[in-house]
């Protein structure tokens, strides 16, 4: 166990946390532009605390999707966190309170930083430091963004609607660097374009999700 491994973990944690927290400003501003008030925006960052799901809530709320569709889309986007939790279970170790807080802070970034470390102590530090720093930074910047967003007026004038689209693309980008996921993304995109004019608000995203699962199962049958 070397101190250089720990130092590397600390520096990665803080770097990732700084970048993600900054991005919280755009979440806050976009949330109020989508029609949420300050506290509704803040509650999402405090309790949901998962960027993809939070953006899904505000994006779908802006289109007038019904509550059930919003909950389903946010919940499905959150499924991966549950799998990260399984992965992090041995890193976190026993203890009810510790595991409850760890659960809350189990997100893309804390898991990725932990997995990137090779030594157990560096993994623990990476997980907890990234989770804690992002929780504080993301919430502070969400509040700043919500206040700023309220002061900006019409979100379209500032291109905030385009910023939301780019935010989803930024979340998607690292996941489509190989052919199969890129194909899944393309099919989901086409299905969405076709279903937006015909299906009720909120449903196109769920139809795309269902098509993704079907594609995964089909691919598995061909390459077991």
């Amino acid at each position, binding site marked *: 166990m070397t101190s250089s491994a720990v130092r590397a973990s600390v520096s990665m944690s803080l770097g990732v946390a700084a970048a993600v927290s900054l991005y919280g400003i755009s979440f806050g501003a976009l949330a109020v532009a989508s029609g949420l008030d300050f506290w509704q925006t803040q509650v999402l960052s405090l309790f949901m605390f998962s960027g993809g799901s939070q953006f899904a809530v505000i994006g779908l709320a802006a289109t007038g999707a019904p509550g059930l569709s919003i909950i389903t889309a946010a919940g499905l986007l959150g499924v991966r966190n549950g799998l990260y939790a399984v992965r992090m279970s041995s890193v976190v170790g026993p203890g009810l309170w510790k595991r409850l807080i760890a659960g809350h802070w189990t997100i893309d970034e804390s898991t990725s930083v932990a997995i990137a470390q090779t030594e157990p102590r560096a993994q623990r530090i990476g997980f907890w430091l990234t989770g804690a720093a992002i929780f504080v930074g993301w919430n502070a910047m969400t509040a700043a963004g919500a206040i700023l967003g309220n002061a900006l007026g019409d979100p379209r004038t*500032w291109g905030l609607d385009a910023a939301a689209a780019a935010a989803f693309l930024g979340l998607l980008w690292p996941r489509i660097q190989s052919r199969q996921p890129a194909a899944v993304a393309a099919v989901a995109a086409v299905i969405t374009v076709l279903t937006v004019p015909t299906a009720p608000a909120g449903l196109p995203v769920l139809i795309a999700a269902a098509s993704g699962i079907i594609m995964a199962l089909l691919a598995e049958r061909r390459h077991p």
Partner: protein
Amino acid sequence: MTLWMTILIASAVVLGTKLLGYLVPASVAAHPRIQRISDVLTVALLASLVVTQTVATGSVIVVDARVAALVFGAALLRIRAPFIVVVLAAAAVAAALRAMGWAA
């Protein structure tokens, strides 16, 4: 359902999923099929959300400044620009196109 109820239930579902992961035996959730379905689900949902945010206005497909902004954002992602830069640049492109009256 009110927006508050939607927000609270959705938050409970997402948080609950995370906590559940610490209860499930690793052998179940670490199954390769579960991992693959989760990856594909995430990709499909995000791709669909990119499309709705870029070309949908309610239930109508509209091509406007958002499309140009997204293309610019994709170009920045290709050259590995940081997340926050991509988001801000996309906003700037859409805002500029609208200010100059070149796109709706």
